[in-house]
């Protein structure tokens, strides 16, 4: 399935208007959305753009807020490389889970929850995956200080 990138971004922008920010970086086409629109966007990209493969899901601590990035590809490859970025404030670190669209988000979201402390709404089993269950804190946050 050959998909035209311009067509998709144009369609997305007519649908979502200024809630969507599109810009290319050196390797990806970056789509910036608000957490509220994340699931709609994901459903659209998976269905219309054939991006059936969520390669990577990670989060970065930008001091005031967290940035969550999703790297999407298609299997078999259709030439699209899309990165979705969304942000959530530090004091209310909550974004919707994309597990219902991409099951592979299951453990990757758990990992982000574990290490960065972002909770994913409607995740089926949001518990720590790498650290022990009784661990206090989220080590990848910039303000995390290890004791001793």
């Amino acid at each position, binding site marked *: 399935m050959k998909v035209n990138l311009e067509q998709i971004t144009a369609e997305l922008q007519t649908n979502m208007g200024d809630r969507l920010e599109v810009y290319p970086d050196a390797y990806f086409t970056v789509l910036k959305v608000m957490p509220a629109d994340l699931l709609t966007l994901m459903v659209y990209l998976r269905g219309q753009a054939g991006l059936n493969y969520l390669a990577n899901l990670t989060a970065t601590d930008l001091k005031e807020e967290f940035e969550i990035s999703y790297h999407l590809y298609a*299997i078999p490859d259709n030439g699209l490389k899309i990165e979705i970025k969304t942000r959530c404030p530090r004091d209310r670190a909550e974004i919707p889970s994309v597990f219902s669209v991409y099951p592979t988000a299951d453990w990757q979201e758990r*990992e982000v929850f574990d290490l960065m402390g972002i909770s994913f709404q409607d995740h089926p089993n949001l518990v720590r995956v790498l650290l022990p269950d009784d661990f206090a804190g989220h080590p990848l946050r910039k303000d995390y200080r290890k004791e001793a």
Partner: protein
Amino acid sequence: MFETDQYTINIGPQHPSTHGGMHVEAVMDGEDIIDVIVHLGYVHRSVEKIAESRTYSQFIPYAARLDYMATHLPVLGYVQAAEKLLGVSVPERAEYIRVIMAELSRIASHMMFVGSLAIDLAATTGLLYCLRDRERIMDMFEMTSGQRLLAAYMRIGGVSHDLPDEFFPAVNSFIDDVPAMIAEYNGLITGNEILQARCNGIGILPADTAIAYGVTGPNLRASGIDYDLRKADPSGIYDRFDFRVPVQEKGDCMARLLVRLEEIETSASIIRQALQQIPEGEILGKVPKVLKPEKGKEVYHRIESAKGELGFYLLSDGSEKPARLHVRAPSFVNLMVLPIISRGGKLQDIIANIATLDPVLGESDR
């Protein structure tokens, strides 16, 4: 008076066949598996946090310790990601050396896979034959980098040492012997009736489930999807080689074994081509002493490692240390389907399923 009941058994974290510290909690009814819950983190070394306090070059040895069964592949992924971030170019000869090393690592990892599958199914001798052949690769790593298992050999901008003279006869004779080795594994391991009975139709991973759960690498190709990043999204100079991506249709343990056996041959043919094409010249490009990418620049770089898509996400804050490094570990993501493919099987199938998903806990736990 008598009633049957479900019970849980804990396979691991100290168990002979979990390939490291992994804890698999199996809910059982007799010998039948009702559910499987995977607990990870026993080998968690906070690599991503450590990266934030190391410079870009200092992280290389940590990358080598991710997938310690194929040490050059995670290093290759990391240095290529860092090169993308820093805009460093790599000399031709170094690119070829990297390909040779990466493919040797892939062969080593797949040999370990075949051997560990054999010993997990109690065919001890199979493991020893694979280790014997892998030993020759380890010797070659020692010749080039001085290290056998955890060779931090690649540098940002090239490799640390040129190939020594004794390397070429060793690698040539190794590649020539690969078909004989495969024939031996086929006779001892793949051809064994009991092993076939334990692998055929066991742990079937349908293609759509595999894609939905982000399974990549040989495990995905065993489910009939022709998706190899060396072809689909080639990094470095992989587009210069002519090779065939092995694909199996069934998606069971046997398919995962056969795909890897064929990949050993594919990798050998890539090495052969690289050895024919390798030019003379520099092995380390012009790289500044202090590496400072521009602020806010980010990169997600992925390579086809022995386990699947190994991705490195790097974000720079303008200093000489990354603001964020994330490893997209194929072992971690692939393990997600272990419960799915194990449900409804027998206790002994879990062992075969773990072995054929081929997780490396150093990578999955990071």
